[in-house]
């Protein structure tokens, strides 16, 4: 395991960015559809 690159920060960043984009859009859709 000593040879495995230590780049977990990038992984965490990508998972956070994805969650923010998806949750942001879900909230946006929820607000728009609530005003129907």
């Amino acid at each position, binding site marked *: 395991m000593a040879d*495995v*690159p230590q780049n977990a920060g*990038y992984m965490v960043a*990508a998972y956070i960015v*994805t969650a923010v984009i998806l*949750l942001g859009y*879900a909230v946006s859709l929820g607000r728009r*559809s609530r005003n129907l």
Partner: protein
Amino acid sequence: MSLVRRGRWITLVALVLLAGVYVRALAFTPIERLQGPAQKIFYLHVPAAIWTEAAMILVGLAGIFFLFLGDPRLDRFAEASAEVGTVFATIVLTTGPIWGKPIWGTWWTWDARLTSTLFLFFLYLGYLLVRGAVRDPGLRARYAAVLGICGMCLVPFIHLSVYLFRTLHPQPIILKPSGPSLPDSMLVTWLFSLLAFTLLYVGFVTQRYAVSLARDARETAAAEHG
């Protein structure tokens, strides 16, 4: 159950599934030895990329059928699919560079796969801008249909670009003629994620379709009274 409520429920189930994907991918899926933890971006990047391309194919197909049949439901579906495709394309274009930096040593390179995917994103934006700029519903639907068909034609090129050109982006390891070349534990996580993204697409499109349906009803009522 109304269309909006159905869409919300599907989205909620998809988000819970995606939370399960996060747990499985981060805690219960082995770390790839050569790339390290950054390889786990694969479980989000690739399903998002598949639905970015599939959404545009569906926009194009809906556009073709709309031009023949003139059914407004097809136009509404295309609009919804394009908006959701734009969201997934944003995920692809943000997670890709975050994955590329530790593996390739650069955030971005102008190779065929990355450039054509960026072009697809701009096509999505152009599609949504055209829809926002044209006020006449009939013209708006026809212009959008033509743009959607153009976008659909780009998708096969994006998928094949890694075979046609020398690119930094790797060739597919799942969607290829010889079948997936991935250990079972990683493949199961990836399939789980693909299911979550598929449900997200369905849930988002259902809700977005309901928004368009309500807007069209308002426009029709305004035209009748004004």
